[in-house]
């Protein structure tokens, strides 16, 4: 089949991206504005020999995709604010157990039930710090339906490569927006599969040292017997409360994000090289920032956009490079506290002119809102 243009909704594109990446297990609990992902999976999974499971809540959804992934099947779930809050505990289990899986969080306005059908970008700190313990969590944020597809494929690739959960941090706007996208043919976009153990099964250590910090992962039913634990464990996966072991395990589990940092942290720039005014954005707000930058360019102001495709780990290098060159940095985002702006300030220092543009009423940020900051 030739490449064909499809008019897809962001949610449908994320579901299609997951299937393209080889996901064959979806477990979720319907929640606005992510439900179309569940609906799509319920229709397609049975045709592909995959599994669609509607769980009793988001705690169980997260648990089920962990179980399925450990059984060797690429797995994912999708949710929004309240559901994402419920997933935190088992996201911690996926991080501790180093279980590849993808969680799509279609962000909506809160706190609590909030404006249940309206967009927000207020889960950014929850994604990074929503769980107890020392950990990293990768988050990619799409600004278009095309990116909904491509970043979901990328999320699976990173999950498989690093043995870790990866969050796709979408928002209600991009999730419900429709755009024409080209679905790549099979093989056209790289799909990465987890590295499996080799050699003597009796010597297999599911949490042993590895050059890049990522030990190979077995699957349930394999001859390489695998012990996975939420509790602190030694290289063999069995309980080990020794302080030296704990220090080694936590350091290794975090080190893999450093080893693979260049593959994880992705940004895109729009006329940012000579920008005096730099907009640092993620997700759909990138589109308004691009329009604002064009308007400024037309009036002779050198403006550009730095889009953080990867929100976490934070793109410190790119923010320092382009933000350091600019006279004014503006961070438009759909939340009250300026969750991303705080990170930008942390990188650029107290002396930098970092301005915030925020919305927290469930309304999109317009180019005009952004231009008011200049």
């Amino acid at each position, binding site marked *: 089949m030739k490449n064909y243009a499809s008019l897809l909704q962001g949610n449908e594109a994320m579901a299609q991206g997951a299937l393209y990446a080889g996901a064959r297990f979806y477990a979720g609990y319907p929640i606005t504005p992510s439900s179309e992902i569940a609906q799509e999976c319920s229709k397609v999974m049975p045709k592909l020999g995959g599994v669609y499971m509607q769980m009793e809540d988001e705690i169980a959804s997260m648990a089920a995709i962990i179980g399925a992934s450990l059984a060797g099947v690429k797995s994912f779930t999708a949710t929004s604010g309240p559901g994402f809050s419920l997933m935190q505990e*088992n996201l911690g289990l996926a991080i501790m157990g180093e279980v590849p899986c993808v969680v799509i969080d279609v962000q909506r306005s809160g706190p609590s039930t909030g404006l249940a059908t309206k967009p927000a970008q207020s889960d950014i700190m929850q994604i990074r710090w929503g769980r107890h313990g020392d950990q990293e969590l990768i988050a990619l944020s799409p600004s278009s339906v095309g990116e909904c597809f491509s970043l979901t494929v990328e999320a699976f690739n990173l999950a498989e490569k690093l043995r870790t959960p990866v969050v796709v941090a979408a928002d209600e706007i991009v999730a419900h927006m429709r755009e024409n996208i080209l679905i790549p043919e099979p093989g056209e976009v790289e799909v990465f599969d987890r590295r499996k153990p080799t050699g003597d099964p009796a010597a297999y250590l599911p949490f042993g040292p590895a050059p890049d910090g990522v030990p190979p992962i077995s699957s349930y039913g394999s001859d390489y017997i695998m012990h996975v*634990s939420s509790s602190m464990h030694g290289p063999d996966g069995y*309980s080990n409360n020794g302080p030296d072991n704990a220090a080694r395990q936590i350091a290794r589990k975090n080190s893999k994000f450093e080893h693979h940092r260049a593959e994880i942290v992705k940004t895109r720039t729009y006329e940012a090289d000579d920008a005096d005014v730099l907009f640092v954005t993620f997700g759909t707000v990138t589109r308004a920032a691009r329009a604002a930058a064009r308007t400024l360019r037309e009036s002779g102001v050198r403006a550009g956009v730095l889009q953080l495709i990867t929100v976490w780990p934070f793109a410190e290098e790119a923010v320092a490079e382009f933000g350091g060159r600019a006279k004014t940095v503006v961070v438009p985002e759909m939340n009250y506290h300026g969750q991303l702006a705080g990170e930008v300030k942390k990188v650029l220092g107290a002396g930098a002119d970092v301005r915030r543009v925020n919305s927290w009423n469930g309304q999109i940020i317009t180019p005009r809102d952004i231009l008011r900051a200049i």
Partner: protein
Amino acid sequence: MTYATGQQYLKDGVLPHMWCPGCGIGVMLRACLRSFEELGYRNEDTVVVTGIGCTGKLDDYVVTHALHTTHGRALACATGIKAAKDDLHVVVFMGDGDSVTIGGNHFLHAARRNIDLTAIVINNFNFGMTGGQFSGTTFNGAITQTSAYGNPERQLDICALAEVAGANFVARSTPWHVDDLSALITEALSRKGFSLVEVLSPCPTHFGSNNKMKKGTDMLGWLKERTMPVDLYRSKSPAERAGIFPIGKLVDRCEPDFAARYAEVGAKATGN
């Protein structure tokens, strides 16, 4: 005659185990591992899933595949394992906290889905690992570390819950009735669909010592007096049944399991 020991599933060098003298978990584990052997389970095809608490420590003693989960979420994780790979033997070990207190929702829905798992629940009437606080199965009036004046709440009947939720197989036993316990576990493991074995267990360290049963044998004797074979139980009047647990095979059904029903969905989706 060969005698199943379950040794092939037990990790080397882990004995003596961590559980208190008089606790029922060791008896239950031994019965389970022997059942695995009797049924010819390969370690490679078997996944032991545990929650948190005294029973949740059990995975550290086995050399099958294993997943030690978060508190109360063992059944939800196990559901994902089994739904993704139906040819695995998935056996879930939980305490009364995991199964019907913090994890009650997952318990109901695992039974409703009739997913082909075996859940073994050690019910020792309190949270042992954290020092003996009341749980969802602690009797009204019982003394625990968080009910010094008596538990104001009532206990849940785990087996009744599994029955109304749709489990195919439901049984109850105790370490006192160890031969019955072994037979029931073997039968539960052999059955399709959601199978539950509730193991009423002594906790002399906490529940017992708080309720005038300091020795393991005190609590075993108490369990003996508080239980009755289910056929006999059903012949008794409601007044005679009060405070008594029926033991044995309580539910035995052959409803299609989740995989069978999902296969029907797959056939419709693909037009086969």
